[in-house]
């Protein structure tokens, strides 16, 4: 393998890793913001205060690894790298926005349910994790939708007139 090819691969893998870290970051950001605000305001640090950070970190880490592995594979194999990265950027934007906005909206709307939520710690963690999972699912849907839209002309062309389009997933695997 030539030095140039190795360098390109390193750049691609680095970009995929950076994307995975960004995905982790935007998922964990709301919990970190809440935690740092409370600590800065004078609430004593405790392991209990880290529960939301821990839930977000588990979800963010899992999703970050999935993103990293997928991007690393696709960016070396797929037919069209720009499609992969454009779809990934859209997904990250959706994830960043939804993982914070959905939490703010849901927690605000559930103002009347604080007592039951506070009484059972697991229900709060489940709510927090569920909302973030929803944001991740939405980001995935955005990624797939954008990728499908970008590859649809090629798929139609490959299928020929009157034929069924080639599934988008074939375009993730390369020639």
């Amino acid at each position, binding site marked *: 393998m030539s030095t140039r090819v190795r360098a390109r691969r390193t750049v691609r893998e680095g970009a995929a890793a950076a994307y995975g870290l960004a995905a982790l970051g935007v998922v964990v950001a*709301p919990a970190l913001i*809440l935690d740092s605000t*409370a600590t800065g305001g004078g609430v*004593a640090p405790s392991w209990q205060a880290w529960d939301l950070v821990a839930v977000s970190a588990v979800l963010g880490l899992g999703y970050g690894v999935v993103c990293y592995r997928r991007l690393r594979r696709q960016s070396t194999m797929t037919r069209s790298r*720009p499609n992969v990265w*454009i779809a990934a950027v859209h997904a990250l934007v959706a994830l960043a926005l939804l993982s914070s906005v959905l939490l703010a909206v849901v927690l605000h709307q559930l103002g*009347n349910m*604080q*007592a039951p939520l*506070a009484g059972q710690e697991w229900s709060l963690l489940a709510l927090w994790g569920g909302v973030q999972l929803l944001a991740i699912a939405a980001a995935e849907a955005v990624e797939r939708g954008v990728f499908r839209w970008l590859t649809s002309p090629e798929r139609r062309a490959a299928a020929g007139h009157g034929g069924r389009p080639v599934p988008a997933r074939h375009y993730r695997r390369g020639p």
Partner: protein
Amino acid sequence: MSLTRRQFLAAAAGVGGAALTGGVLADQVWPLLSREDLVPGRTPELVLPARAWETTPDRLTFAAVGDTGTGGRQAVAVAARMAQGYEQNPYGLITHLGDICYYGKIDDRFEDVFLRPYGPLVQAGVDVELAIGNHDGEVYFSDARLEEIETELRLLGTPARYYRSTHGPVDFFYLDSSTPGLFGPDASAQLDWLDDALATSTSQWKIVCLHHPPYSSGRHGATPGAEDLLIPVLERHAVDLVLAGHDHNYERTIPLDGITYVVSGGGAKLTPVRPSRITAAAASVLQYLHVEVDGDRLTGRCIRPDGGLVDRFTLRAREGR
């Protein structure tokens, strides 16, 4: 590498969306998350000795806190520290500086915003006296707002929208500072009442409690109209201390014509404060004020949820009192 029209459009939308999202998150959503206190807080599990305080004609200990109405983790942390403060130095009175309920109606949220966080203190028999805040009845000066305030007053056993109470050597004067009640066209009735009440007060200490601060270096700042309408009355009757909330921080002014003004609005939320030329102490922290009056000396301590001391000040009674 050349891009197709679709790729170009999608890439441009992605970059634009990223820039827009970054702006919205940094300017709106993340500040909102850090400003509000939306995550439910765990109920404090302390059991406090009932009626452990001692109030005599020349001694009183009380706590002052404002803007507690979230029911969230930060509000519960402040309430828990207040309960611990009671354990160490019992008090029989909380002067609440307004905004006891955010995010809904007090009838629906009384347990969340008050009974749950302050349960140990309520169980111990501590009285709560409320100065009405702008969020205590969200709808501006309407029947619905008045109804909401009436409900709050009923739930807390507060006698009226503005009233006077005496505890040991201190006369407290609680005002409804929500506009236009105190600073608007209808101000005269309440200000006349305050003028008369202060004139007839014979206690050694006079403390005025209201939600909107006459002086503040916080986010909302000094309340318009206070300087012209309220402060002359306070100065004429040599009030010792004015306690307020509204800005979600702590601030104590230097004595201004003999009056010390304290903002103690860090009961649940946080906003920044920039000390000004009249500031003696200020901090953007969650906090409450623990006040001990002993004869001619009043000592206030601003305490964070972790027990840290933010500020300590001492006032001496006015000459002749």
